[in-house]
């Protein structure tokens, strides 16, 4: 742990998500058809503490991006509560929501698609400041932007160039500078390094860790790459088909996974070492993630789980604490 907490009540979490549901509507089937709704997220709860990174892992369709968006209030929760800095922000609107967004920023996955190709770097980084009315003209923030660019490791002459002049890694640095411009405390990073090459990925991961240490940022780090998540996170949560199946301290989760899905997921990640990799036991479950429009009753993993019993098919297990801070949703483990 970074900050050993004295024997006082622990610091309140920066962000607390309680029983979050998100429902999406699909298009109507046919002209007279009724639109169907499906629950993309069901009963998601977690806390994020100041200066902490929570890794959010899952396969496509598991709801990890939806969680990030819901927390940032980009999409509306259909049930549950989001508490940020002690205030319930689930239904915050208008000016209050705009103010709130200064404090929570997003870093996107694709540095090629997320930067406007017609804007200079200085305009890109100044845009959040302009939008929030903190400056009236880009020139007012020139020094601040120079400093931001230096912090994220971009060359000093980057100001007046356009995104196309930069490589993928450098563009991701521009995206990070943009997110930092408003000095937020909380950043949702949605697959920030998955579009980058291996050697460049390390540069960006290192940068994010340095920034966290220096600025005390909290990250919700959304990724499908379990190796990167282990490297950067303090705690890790695993999502499957819209539900959280396990959450624990990083090493606890990786060394002692409890949920059968977590176990299978970890065993599927190849390790870059031939001797180790050939000896690793892979747990391969057939089948695929269930269709969320008609989800299985009970545990969503029950259709693939070797341990599934009658109960699993009928009733969904809730997260329960197995050891300090290690929560699992499973009837049989």
């Amino acid at each position, binding site marked *: 742990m970074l900050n050993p907490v004295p024997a006082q009540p622990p610091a309140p979490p920066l962000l607390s998500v309680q029983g979050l549901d998100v429902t999406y509507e699909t298009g109507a089937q046919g002209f007279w058809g009724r639109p169907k709704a499906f629950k993309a997220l069901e009963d998601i709860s977690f806390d994020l503490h100041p200066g902490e990174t929570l890794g959010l892992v899952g396969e496509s369709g598991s709801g990890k991006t939806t969680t990030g968006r819901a927390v940032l209030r980009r999409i509306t929760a259909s049930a549950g509560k989001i508490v940020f800095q002690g205030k319930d922000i689930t239904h915050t609107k208008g000016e209050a929501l705009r103010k709130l967004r200064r404090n929570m920023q997003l870093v996107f996955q694709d540095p090629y698609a997320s930067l406007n190709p017609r804007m200079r770097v200085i305009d890109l980084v100044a845009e959040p400041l302009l939008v929030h009315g903190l400056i009236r003209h880009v020139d007012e923030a020139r020094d601040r932007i120079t400093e931001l660019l*230096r912090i994220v490791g971009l060359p000093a002459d980057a100001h007046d160039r356009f995104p196309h002049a930069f490589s993928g*890694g450098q563009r991701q640095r521009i995206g990070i500078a943009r997110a930092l411009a408003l000095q937020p405390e909380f950043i949702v990073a949605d697959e920030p390094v998955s579009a980058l090459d291996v*050697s460049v990925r390390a540069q960006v991961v290192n940068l994010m860790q340095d920034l966290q240490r220096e600025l005390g940022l909290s990250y919700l780090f959304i990724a499908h790459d379990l190796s990167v998540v282990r490297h950067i996170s303090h705690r890790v949560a695993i999502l499957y088909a819209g539900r959280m199946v396990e959450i624990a301290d990083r090493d606890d989760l990786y060394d002692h996974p409890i949920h059968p899905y977590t176990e299978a997921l970890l065993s599927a990640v190849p390790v870059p070492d031939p001797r180790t990799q050939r000896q690793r036991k892979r747990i391969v479950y057939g089948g695929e993630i269930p269709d969320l429009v008609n989800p299985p009753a009970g545990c969503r993993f029950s259709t693939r789980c070797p341990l599934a019993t009658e109960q699993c098919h009928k009733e969904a297990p809730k997260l329960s604490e197995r050891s300090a801070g290690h929560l699992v949703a499973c009837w049989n483990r």
Partner: protein
Amino acid sequence: MSVSANSTGTPLLEVEKLKVEFDTRRGLVQGLRGVTLSIGRGETLGVVGESGSGKSVTAQAVMGLIDLPGRIASGDIRWKGRSLLGSDGERYARDIRGKEVAMVFQDPMTSLNPVLKIGTQIGEVLERHLGMTRAQARNRAEELLAAVGISAPGRRLDQYPHEFSGGMRQRVMIAMAIACEPELLIADEPTTALDVTIQAQILELLAELQQSLGLSVVLITHDLGVVAGLCHRVAVMYAGQIIETGLAEDVFERPAHPYTQGLLRSTPRLDEVSDRLVSIEGTPPNLVTPPEGCSFQQRCPLSGEACRKAPKLEHIRPDAEAACWRPSVPAWATPLMSPTFP
């Protein structure tokens, strides 16, 4: 596991000093700058590198997929000792491509024709290359789908690609590739677009097919973990050249080239906790005007006077080659905080 056990006599595929150029508006891009490699029977070769290193171009050259504005500038590609280039070679190549050498592409979402049934698409391969009738092709297609682990193959034949998930589409692609019982399968990032548990299923399938059909496989990937599980031999590419090659265990355990060392140490591992990753500063060179000498020198912590001359790929041990003037010298210190924060 021995590499050369099966590779007696002429190797299946040889690529020699291959140069590929692309004429673009920005100038002549030297995509491949003298690549030499060979694959024996039953062998699995992993080709690793980052984007733009030339790993896919190598595969495309073998499959005859280099199209304008690209062209093969020099070098040779030989299949069982016979060249695939030149007018004679091209006639020969038409017979063997798709039949004796087959390829699986990265993106199963876009490699299948969305308006044709799966059965029709697999059948097409069989009718074209093996001269089967429609009915024979249909039966064989059903067997193939079963062989790649698709359940209810008879029903699946009449479905369209959009009715298949990503992992299933990749299985279909593999079924098409092995339809003519090829001797060599080139898989270009076959699992990159897939989720990790589905990736594990596909890798398992490739390993099984390799065993049961005695296939040789060239696996092109940026994921070092994928290579570690499946490959006997590894070739590491950088800026259009192979900079290190050897047995998989060897390359992973004793990487000789500073780039390989850096690549391995900048990859976080699932089974290890590290405080900080090695970061290779900078980016790969521009291949319109590649640097004189070693292409890695701008990013290499060991670079010196000698590196202004290009190093050749030379034996550093039996079964291991590297293109470096100072091979096997530890290049990366334990990383510290980045210089941004003093």
